[in-house]
């Protein structure tokens, strides 16, 4: 046993550290297409103090530390590129406080979306959070760190926009509170009216610190949720349709799906609209708003609402949606990955054309899902392709297609969401040089020894 292993065992207890081959193998990869790289140690802290001690140890020994939630980004963001200590946050899974009146929750760094959802359903059924469509084991912190989206993103922006405070172990091991909680016992604001320092940690993929607590805004959980489905076969109309729906400020969620299979989806852009209400009148009013908003497309016969029978609704309303999992199993060998640029909605037709072009060029099965963000300021557009894990050639073809999709997204003025290390380089190459310089200065300040998830957001 190395000294580091023993030191880690002393910090967290011997049952919560491993340098066994099996653990190192599993923690060295994610379900996506980035090449694996194993850590030397896997450790599962239980407290903030333990995280602090581990980071201090890593600084002392100059070994990398990679904080990890469920590892579901698919873009290899928690693959330890330079080995070191893999910090699995799953044991820090408590819900520390729900402030019903101010509408926020404080969770530990490894708390999952499933845990929060079930807690709210049981104890605060009038409140909800923005549930992403990733598997329910996705952690709240990791989802915020990658600027994830969820079922409330159309109304309230990225899930990271809903953060209301952080507790962070800096790259030096120091502990720091961010937001109103830095000066108050309340976690209602991530910054305003003070400088917003959450930007030093959100979007950095753990390269500036380890988030050990997070405040997240909660929203009213309306008594009724219902699903509507609008179809059009014209990609050029989709941006206007989504924008108009967004600007009603009435829709919970707006997502356009496009795929050649199942056959009922083929040839159309299938726009799912979720409406909510506390009364039948409220739901009916919103339903009417959706109809009125899209009436011109209905009259021209370019678009129409599909009747959604009762047996179809539970699947459409499910949080998280199971569609992604089903899609992942389309190809034998069950693999899929997507590039999900954030881009203006107006780019939808160009992105659809590229999605199909790449699928045809690389002989891939494809699907796309585009979610409206924050009323229509932007959307997340996914280029999704499936592969067979037992067929290396199919994996190479998907990776090549996704690389091209990322290049294309940047050319079109989009920004790559949760970019892998290659895509991060693409982004940084295009970035304003002074912005990049500022990023690197901040990084150096917060992580002077360069031990935090190295390989990510590295300019050199």
């Amino acid at each position, binding site marked *: 046993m190395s000294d580091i292993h023993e030191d880690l065992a002393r910090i967290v207890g011997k049952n919560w550290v491993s340098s066994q081959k099996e653990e190192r193998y599993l923690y060295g990869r994610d379900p996506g297409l980035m090449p694996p790289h194993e850590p030397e140690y896997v450790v599962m802290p239980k407290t903030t103090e333990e995280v602090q001690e581990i980071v201090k140890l890593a600084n002392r020994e100059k070994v990398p530390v990679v904080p990890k939630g469920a590892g579901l980004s698919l873009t290899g963001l928690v693959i330890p590129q330079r080995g070191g200590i893999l910090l699995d946050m799953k044991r820090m899974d408590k819900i520390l406080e729900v402030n019903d009146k101010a509408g926020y929750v404080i969770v530990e760094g490894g708390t999952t979306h499933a845990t929060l959802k079930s807690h709210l359903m049981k104890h605060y059924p009038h409140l909800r959070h923005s549930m992403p469509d990733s598997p329910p084991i996705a952690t709240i912190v990791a989802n915020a760190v990658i600027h994830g989206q969820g079922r409330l993103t159309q109304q309230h922006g990225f899930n990271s926009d809903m953060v209301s405070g952080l507790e962070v172990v800096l790259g030096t091991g120091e502990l720091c509170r961010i937001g109103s909680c830095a000066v108050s016992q309340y976690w209602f604001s991530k910054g305003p009216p003070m400088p917003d320092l959450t930007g030093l940690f959100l979007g950095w993929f753990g390269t500036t610190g380890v988030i050990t607590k997070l405040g997240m805004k909660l929203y009213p959980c309306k008594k009724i949720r219902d699903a509507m489905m609008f179809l059009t076969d014209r990609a050029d109309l989709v941006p206007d349709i989504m924008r108009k729906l967004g600007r009603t400020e009435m829709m919970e969620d707006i997502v356009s799906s496009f795929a050649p299979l199942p056959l009922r989806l083929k*040839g159309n852009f299938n726009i799912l609209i979720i409406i909510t209400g506390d009364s039948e009148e409220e739901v009916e009013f919103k339903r009417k708003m959706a109809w009125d908003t899209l009436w011109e497309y209905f009259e021209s016969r370019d*678009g129409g609402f599909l009747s959604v029978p*009762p047996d179809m609704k539970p699947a459409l309303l499910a949080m998280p949606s199971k569609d992604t999992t089903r899609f992942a199993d389309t190809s034998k060998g069950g693999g899929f990955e997507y590039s999900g640029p954030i881009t203006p909605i107006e780019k939808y037709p160009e992105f659809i054309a590229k999605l199909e072009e790449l699928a045809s060029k690389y002989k891939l099965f494809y699907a796309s899902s585009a979610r409206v963000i924050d009323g229509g300021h932007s959307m997340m557009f996914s280029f999704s392709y499936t592969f067979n894990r037992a067929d290396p050639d199919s994996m190479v073809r998907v990776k090549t297609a996704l690389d091209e999709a990322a290049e294309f997204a940047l050319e079109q003025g989009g920004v790559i969401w949760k970019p892998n290390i290659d895509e991060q380089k693409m982004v940084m190459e295009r970035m304003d040089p002074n912005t990049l310089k500022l990023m690197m200065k901040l990084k150096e300040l917060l992580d002077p020894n360069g031990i935090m998830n190295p390989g990510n957001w590295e300019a050199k």
Partner: protein
Amino acid sequence: MLELKFDKSKCADCKAVSCLVKCQYMDFDKDTAKVEWQKVIDGEDCRVLHDCVTCYSCEEYCPFGNHPFYLIVERQEEKGILPAPRPVITMWINQCQPVGRFMVGKVEEKALSYCFLPIFNELVKGKLFDGIWPSMIFGQEFFCNAVYLHYARMSVIKDRLPKIVENIAKQGIKELVCLHDECYGTFTSIALAYGIEVPFKPIHYYEYLHDRLKELKAEIKPLNVKAAYQRNCSARLIPETDHFVDDIFGLIGVERVKREYDGENGLCCAELIRMSKGPKLADDVQKRNVDDMVKFGAEYCVFNCPACYDSLVERVMRAGIKPIRMIDLCKVAIGEEQSQKPALEGMPVLKAAMEGK
């Protein structure tokens, strides 16, 4: 190319023009109807081709069996008139296209057709189907395709139907019990109108149920309830089957309420109207229909068609009426469990209302 057997001389001699005068969704007096119908015959653009809600009723109203509705559908397609938004039509055409995937049970000379409706996997259980199940077929390859009448796509029906008939015949089936009303309508009405030979005997499932109930008579416990019957669009292609509703109800002690919107005057479930004309007319039709059920004291609403059930189930329940499919009604009458109960998860507004109580 398959041609519609339509005799314009029958229309020339027709004084009543019932096809249009009786229409519940377009308002015509006899004189206007005569002029308008002549335009349809002559292939001219006219109001009928745009305003038709595709309820199929004129097929029943025509006393000569001259297929006025099929002619309307042909004309709509010729003129590129879209009774529903184009993407909705595309969705239907794609969804049900034969792709070589189907399911068959232990098929014998007499078999059940589930058409392409998975609901029958739940419904077909118990004594009513002893002796025939698992002789069954299911899938796009056996889908009757009548739904395209709603979408001005007679060409799709003409293209696919002969192959569908062939697929069924290839299974060695001599008698096909059509659990989907539209299948029976397709094989006995559309096929006939276009000269498509059907080498097996279609049996309407109401006839089958009626015969089975007679065999199981000793087990019937009369339900002693009043029920509204929801007629469906394809029933208009085969009005000769309507008496089976009364026959079955008679066997199991159900009174078919004599309401305004039954029989020839029945109202469409209106979901197609919603997709083609919008919510205003659809909501009005559904409201009048359900109000009528309430007014005449119906305790149950009995459905033939799965789509009608989906369309009206919530509104019917909100009116305090129990929705039930004909197969389930018969099961309950012989002491068996109802297979398909309304799933509240799919009706969030109603669910919230019930939880609120």
